[in-house]
């Protein structure tokens, strides 16, 4: 196991949303703090810092991960994706995002980034995910505004659309 000196900054290289990151940080810095406050990608939110609420969920090498329980240095050499990567372009919404908007699957929007990332990684790995699987993934997220039903509906709609069962006109953001 690599040992890192606590008081020193260490070089850190990874890919965030397709762009190379090459910076330094202390070993104790959390990935949430690093991507939010060092890089400025503030779409990922911090809700509990103990891995329960799911607001900070990001994709690390295609797997959902709690960024609040991940040290920034653990991302070395990884491909990290956050909510900022989901839209097709600056004034567009991705399929999942559009479904959330259509179904009023968000209110305050604070927990939303993490939910989108969990669903995005699920549907990428399991395009045929059943409602039970979708609900199972969603149990890893706390939302205090919506009562969850619109989130489930949006996820199912998006899953069907991504599978090509339904199609919609692209939606402007």
């Amino acid at each position, binding site marked *: 196991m690599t040992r890192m000196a606590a008081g020193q900054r260490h070089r850190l290289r990874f890919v965030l949303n397709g762009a190379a990151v090459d910076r330094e940080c202390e070993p*104790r*810095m*959390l990935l949430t*703090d690093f991507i*939010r406050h060092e890089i*400025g*990608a*503030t*779409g*990922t*939110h*911090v*809700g*509990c*810092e*103990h*891995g*329960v*609420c799911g*607001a900070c969920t990001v994709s690390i090498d295609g797997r959902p991960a709690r960024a*609040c*329980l991940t040290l920034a240095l653990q991302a070395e050499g990884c491909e990290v994706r*956050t*909510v*900022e990567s*989901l*839209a097709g372009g600056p*004034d567009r*919404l991705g399929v999942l995002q559009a479904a*959330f*908007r*259509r179904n*009023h699957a*968000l*209110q*305050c*929007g*604070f*927990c*939303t*980034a993490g939910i*989108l990332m969990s669903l995005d990684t699920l549907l990428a790995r399991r395009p045929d995910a059943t409602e039970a699987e979708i*609900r199972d993934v*969603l*149990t*890893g*997220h*706390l*939302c*205090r*505004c919506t*009562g*969850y*039903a*619109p*989130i*489930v509906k949006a996820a199912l709609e998006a899953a069907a659309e991504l599978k090509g069962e339904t199609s919609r006109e692209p*939606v*402007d*953001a």
Partner: protein
Amino acid sequence: MNVNAAASPGIAAPWVGRSVPRVEDPALLTGRGRFIDDLGVRPGTLHAAILRSPHAHANIVSIDIEAAKQARGVAAVLTGNDIKALTASLVVGVKAPVECWPIAVGRVRYVGEPVAIVVAESRYLAEDAVDLIDAQYDALPAVIDPLRTMEAEAPLLHEGFPNNIASDRRFKYGDPDRVFAEAPHTIAVTIRYPRNSCTPIETYGIVAEYDSGEQAFDVLANFQGPFSIHAVLSRALKVPGNRLRLRTPPDSGGSFGVKQGVFPYIVLIAAAARATGRPVKWIEDRLEHLTASVSATNRATTLRAAVTGEGRILALDWDQVEDCGAHLRAPEPATLYRMHGNLTGAYDIGHVAVRNRVVVTNKTPTGLNRGFGGPQVYFALERLVQRIAVELKLDPLDVITRNLVPSGAFPYRTAPGALLDSGDYQQALARGIREGGLAELRKRRDEARAEGRIYGIGFAAVVEPSVSNMGYITTVLTAAERRKAGPKNGAQATATISIDPVGSVTVHVASVPQGQGHRTVLAQVVADVLGLTPADIRVNAEIDTAKDAWSIASGNYASRFAPAVAGTTKLAAERLAARLARVAASTLNTETDDIAFAGGFALSKRNPDNRIAFSRIAALSHWSPGALPDDVGQTIRETVFWTPPELTPPDDSDHINSSLCYGFIFDFCGVEIDRVTLQTRIDRYVTMHDCGTILHPAMVDGQVRGGFAQAVGAALYEEYAYAPDGSFLTGTFADYLLPTVAEVPEPIILHMQTPSPFTPLGSKGVGEGNCMSTPVCIANAVADALGVENIELPLLPARLAETLRGAETPAPTGTAKAKDAPKGGRKLIGEGTATVRASPEQIWKMLLDPMTLQAVIPGCHDVRKISETHFRADVTLGVGPVKGRYRATVTLSDLDQPHGVTLTGTAEGALGFGSGKGRITLVPGENGGTTVRYVYEAEIGGKVASIGGRLLDGAARVVIGQFFAALARQAGGSAASQSIVASAMAGIRRLFGGRR
């Protein structure tokens, strides 16, 4: 961006009433939201971290901040006395000689109370320095029960609140004494409503700055209102209101009332900014939030009813004891009085007696929380209605129906003074029963019961108040005290419509939404008045008290948006439209009343071809004010302040119309309780709402669903739990259980719309109703299922087991583990073995050598040998998000060299305290090795006690595993540690959080 893509461009169809896509969503969905911690700060901004009390009640003996002040990056360390020197006490809601500081001064009164603030270059460095503060306490007895706190022998929290009672008022409406004396039946319920909170996923955040030249504060905080608190803040910061600029960020991650409670921290952080001369930022963490932000009140209520044999309620007698925690912070005791006018619920009850006591206990101070007083009141009232049915052998639905306010009686004045604005409760009931399928549900119950399953049906009928009368809180004062203080009443809502030089329209309201979609709805409202589309309207709902129109009622609470803010916005748009119509009439050579606004034009109704683009008319006031008709004035900006005349102050007999609007909710549900696990499953839930005119159906449903989910949590899972010694037990989301998608069923939502005659759009509030109706509806169903009288929330299986099966049989005596029940806090018990490749003699030596111990104890900084059998150590340990430095003393006894030793010790640190005892025995093993056996028993309190037991046990195993592994390494052998420790380590490692 085109919000109207889904809607047809028809001129006539109004935008209001349609579920248009929200303008808020694109930014929130793409990670471009602007929550307070997303905004960045000025260069040189410092970051604060707070040292909090591990004790529920203790005198502060000393606070040594020297080491913290010397730590890297630290700018200042402030204690209670420093803050006291810079500020004045917060206003207390009753007349009493009591002070209320945002930080402990001399004494701590609840776990989590701030004791010191460190301000440093980064949050990481600030938290490092918090660990170095040495606070010494002299613990006092604590009291956490609202009834016990009033007893003579209970510890006193504040000298100015004798017997811990902050207020004791009695009210009489009608002639309840006579009615009770003459009534055929008196039926009563005694209930305890627990503590809980709606816990927004975004915590508190503040950035504060002080300009010494102008002696003025500039504060950005995710505060939600009411802005009456601005007056409390400026008074506490000792500046006039115009020298406290309070601003809110564009987005706020949920509040549900809770972010009202950020205000004491605004004083703290603003004072820290003043002390350091630098901007200071503080973002609360989750443990701080759950432990010490704010809570709903817990309440002990006895409610009696005088009843006829047919279940007609003739009189009510309320005895409420409201637990506001350790300090009575503004606007408390508002939770107790918010429902005062509608203490009769949805019922026509002519006589009411009330005794309201407000008490303090060693728990977190209370404040706004969705439902605000409603859950507590309706839990008593609707449980009572169910009990009346059971005791008189009536159908609960018949008891409800017999007592409802008659349709046609609106506006209806209740006995305590509320003016129920509109409704048709009978029709709502009938439609709910029919459209919600009650007959089918009853069949399901009968079938389930026939199969031997535990199934019940519950009902609740409630009125949901909205738009609080700012004067209702003065009902806590006597009429004489009120006369002295001057009458308080009303609720000013504000809206400003502005037109810029190219004729585009901007709306500003002081409503501070936290996800409720205010900007979308207001664009709809204004588009309808001005004949534009919502996309043409830009809405800003942030507050800047230095620049915006606002008043004490501003903010987002008491479900006031749809009835008050949206209505006021309509009035402002109409006033501007009236003046624009005069400009258009003059331009189009017609009369003012011939002008209509539609499709982006001002046009003649008689001759629609005679028209002019709205933007041209709208811009005229900028470019050629001289060309406007003389009586028009300007059409650039219109601000309307609106306060409804129905909101009068309490009269001399304490009648109070506590709210402007009263929606109606009728709920029923079927629940099944698992016979083995006693888990409650909601089989079907129907909720019928009448919230007046609906402005945006999808958002109304969103409010209902969200409130319902929180209420399911309150009914089945959530409680801010305290140990008897006042230790807080639910400091993480692994302990304070919020319902997830798996626990929240989808309710059947029904609507009817009886417009309010008192609001400009006919709408009423809808955001809080299910937090009031759902907990008691579920409780009534569970009571029906189990046939029990007393139901206490949350309905945990363990609690139901106690009700049904009696208290759990105590474990057999004689074993070490069961010897004594914990007095409070959490108890840790464990045992294990480890094999070390060294002789017992070698290990014995090592265990008694400070140098070795320092090397092998995980997180140990320093071990000092006081005597042969007495050691002191400084240790840093982390469990989950709680990591801190502890000072430990260890005494050795029963020394049996080299076979066994008993260690007795205590530890105390910023995050908690504990004491324990352990015995280590050394048995020679194979190949010259030694088997080390250990048993330990420890009790802990304070912040660490708020970590779940499993996490603590696991962490203890990890630490012990690390200890023996290091011991083995030190002895020159390799560790042969237990596999149980290794697997626990992997699990615990995932759970290690914190900012380190």
